[in-house]
């Protein structure tokens, strides 16, 4: 049932300016755009860090970057991509789309929503200010394992902790907001089983964040206390436990992986049917698979710890729970494939990224099954095999999904369609560059290259694969650059978008592009299926025939 949102407080005049309007906004659409653009900014920053690392690793014994700087680079790259790019950009999509998709005027708590965004900005500023801290940026890895992160000198590590604390609060507020919005503000007729699949995934994203962020906050607090006031939670020399931190971190950290992939899967589930001119195959199965993945993800954390010597019985448990994730994930992949079967496929850029997602995410899922098998994990844990796997899932998965979403919803957000010609070039460069970068890293891992080393002196295959990987990263960089070129070109002379340029299925296409402040000008139709827009189009057609 729809619940009336409290009317906005009267807005004082100075908040109406062009810039002030954005700074003081509580409109979910504007906040969504702010989230997305800020995340894209950090995406560029994190990407540059990655390119610097690949430049250093292109050839053996390179001295382009010093050891210390390299350690800062991978720490900041990982932290940026997880906390400042993928999680918040998905929050941006959620912010923009959830109220539109469920037919609400805004999110449940618009001002909390603004608070969440500004805390995210603050967290990003705090993290990046660490480059100027005494001792430089944090350099203990994005996981900041103890005791190393306790012993690391300088304030970079403390700023890392502070930043993550702030970002956790931001995410937590955002997640609660999404949950209340989804649970309380759906328009008439939109039962749970008629919600767009993207909304399902934002619900799972939020539920997971609410459940696991407190664990991260607790772990970070203990780490901060260990560093600053000499508590000894994590120092074995003083009676603490080094493994405790890993359990706490991964209890948060693994569900976080699903936080980052589920909404991207949601985007794929929206894009594929529209460009196949078919309903999604097995809506119920995909919705339940989303919930299933979220639940199982809470019980897999110690598969990051197979090499720490935890008891074999536990390793077996975590192997089986991890393998279980593959089942609902497989269901999704096969259902997506079946969605394209006998469709009328239009290869827009959004569709290309969605199809590309299926092509590469499958590989990331399969290497995940390898890693779940703990004796094999003993071989390749902490090697480039894991780096390959996680990028197949997070770049080939999340980022491909995000680009599909950007191309698909850009017309709704900005009223102009992103240039399709540049878009296709971007897709192919990104797709090829991605595979050239990350596929050889599987082999590097099997050959014995550990993660997080700033150089190596092996020639032969190590050299070849590393060089290929670095070349690939350059190609991928060009691809991403094209996206920003596209944004500028489209802003200047992009094709104007109608309300429903793709013949979509969901309610966001029922309003103007971009939508008015409270989203819909008139009353919404009673929702009778998970594809309300198609229902309307069909009814209009029938009326014309009468």
């Amino acid at each position, binding site marked *: 049932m729809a619940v009336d949102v409290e009317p906005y407080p009267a807005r004082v005049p100075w908040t109406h300016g062009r810039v002030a309007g954005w700074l003081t906004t509580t409109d979910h659409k504007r906040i969504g755009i702010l989230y997305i653009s800020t995340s894209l900014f950090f995406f560029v920053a994190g990407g540059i860090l990655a390119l610097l690392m690949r430049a250093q690793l292109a050839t053996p014994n390179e001295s382009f970057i010093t*050891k210390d700087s390299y*350690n800062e680079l991978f720490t900041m790259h990982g932290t940026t991509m997880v906390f400042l790019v993928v999680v918040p950009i998905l929050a941006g999509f959620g912010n923009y789309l959830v109220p539109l998709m469920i037919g609400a005027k805004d999110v449940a708590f618009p001002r909390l929503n603004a608070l969440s965004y500004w805390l995210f900005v603050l967290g990003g500023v705090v993290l990046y200010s660490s480059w100027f801290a005494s001792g430089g940026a944090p350099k*203990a890895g994005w996981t900041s394992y103890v*005791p190393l992160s306790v*012993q*690391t000198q300088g304030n970079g590590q403390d700023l890392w902790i502070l930043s993550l604390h702030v970002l956790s609060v931001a995410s937590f507020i955002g997640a609660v907001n999404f949950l209340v919005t989804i649970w309380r503000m759906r328009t008439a007729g939109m039962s749970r089983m008629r919600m767009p699949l993207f909304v399902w995934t934002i619900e799972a994203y939020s539920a997971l964040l609410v459940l696991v962020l407190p664990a991260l906050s607790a772990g970070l607090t203990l780490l901060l206390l260990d560093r600053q006031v000499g508590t000894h939670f994590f120092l*074995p*020399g003083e009676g603490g*436990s*080094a493994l405790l931190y890993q359990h706490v971190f991964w209890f948060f950290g693994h569900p976080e992986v699903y936080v980052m992939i589920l909404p991207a899967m949601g985007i794929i589930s929206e894009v594929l049917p529209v460009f*196949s*001119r*078919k309903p999604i*195959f*097995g809506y*119920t*199965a995909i919705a339940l698979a989303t919930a299933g993945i979220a639940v199982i993800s809470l019980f897999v954390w110690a598969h990051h710890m197979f090499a720490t*010597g935890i008891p*074999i019985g536990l390793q077996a448990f975590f*192997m089986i729970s991890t393998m*279980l994730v593959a*089942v609902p994930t*497989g269901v999704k992949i*096969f259902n997506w*494939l*079946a969605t*394209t*079967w006998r*469709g*009328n*496929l*239009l290869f827009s850029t959004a569709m290309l990224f969605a*199809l590309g997602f*299926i*092509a590469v995410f*499958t*590989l990331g899922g399969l290497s995940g*099954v*390898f890693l779940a098998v703990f*004796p094999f994990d*003993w*071989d*390749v*844990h*902490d090697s480039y095999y894991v780096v390959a796997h996680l990028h197949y899932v997070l770049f080939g998965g999340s980022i491909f999904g995000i680009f599909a979403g950007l191309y698909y919803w850009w017309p709704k957000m900005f009223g102009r369609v992103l240039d399709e010609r540049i878009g296709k070039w971007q897709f192919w460069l990104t797709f*090829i560059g991605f595979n050239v970068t990350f*596929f050889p890293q599987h*082999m590097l891992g*099997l*050959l*014995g290259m*550990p*993660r*997080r*080393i700033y*150089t190596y002196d092996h020639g*032969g*295959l190590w050299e070849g*694969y590393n060089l290929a990987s670095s070349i690939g990263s350059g190609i991928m960089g060009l691809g991403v650059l094209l996206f920003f070129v596209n944004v500028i070109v489209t802003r200047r002379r992009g094709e104007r978008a109608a309300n429903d340029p793709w*013949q979509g299925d969901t309610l966001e296409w029922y309003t103007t592009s971009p939508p008015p402040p409270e989203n819909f000008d008139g009353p919404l139709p009673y929702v009778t299926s998970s594809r309300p827009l198609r229902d309307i189009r069909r009814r209009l057609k029938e009326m014309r025939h009468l």
Partner: protein
Amino acid sequence: MRARVLFLTGLLILAALALAGVALADDGGFAPAGPDSPNANRIESIYWFVFGFAVFIFLIVEVALVLFIVKYRNRGRPRDAEGPQVRGHVNLELAWTAIPVLILIAIAIFTFYKLPGIKDVPSAGAAGPQLRMNVEGKQFYWQFTYPNGVIAIDTVRLPVQRPVRMEVTAPINDVIHSWWIPALGPKIDAIPGHPNHIWYEVEKPGSYVGQCAEFCGIQHAAMRATVEGIPAPQFDSWLSNEARAQADGSSNLGEQEFNGVCAKCHGLDGKGGIGPDIATSALIQNKDSLETIVREGRGLMPAVGEDWNQRQMDALFSYLQKRFGSGS
């Protein structure tokens, strides 16, 4: 459009060929390195078992994907021409839920079948009984201790065809490292205050290199290790000779310590690197001050020798004397 597709396909094929060329130059890196130990062998067989299913699933997905893309492409149909409005198919969906479950069960069963041979240390091998020793990961070197007290740094000699059971740990105030010789198979973390175990049986003589796999600080990449597999009789005589040499101070332990422990930060010539110049430092001329700094560290320097025994300390001091001493 066509030209661009051709161009991109060509680019893809070239990239693939380049990769394949590099890959075929050696054993390619398409399977775990080695394997040169029975447990590594069994892990590799698990790898191939999973690999078979993975290729099967991968091909199904990618072939179907490409097939559908080609077959159901738009082909000038109007945009609103819909495909058949199929909403699902219960039996199909059950099938692609159940088949993966069966595959995963098969993988789990095979893993548990191979597991005892991977984790249980045999009590003896073809060339003699099990050898027990200690491995310690320290910032930024590996220290090996044999049952008779012989110590080695970074390079460890192991008898061929004899199971070696290693207790792997780190000094209580150190950080986490991970002991990994890829060709010999599994790795295990070296965690302060948390002893772990691992075993190998080096199958043939040779040199097997590896390095620390858990990020441990500024010299993580320099924390290399070498296992020298040597025939058991030679190993036995080396070990007893080395024990005598280390007892009377005539071994090269001091040199190993300097190269493995000091030189990574202070340079092989002692003239400094990450750490300061020590070649001319008065500090190393005095046994007590050397011992203090090695045991306790200073500033950015970790306590590299917090748990060294007196013999190790003496060996380092006399080597430094010989190498940089004012008297020489």
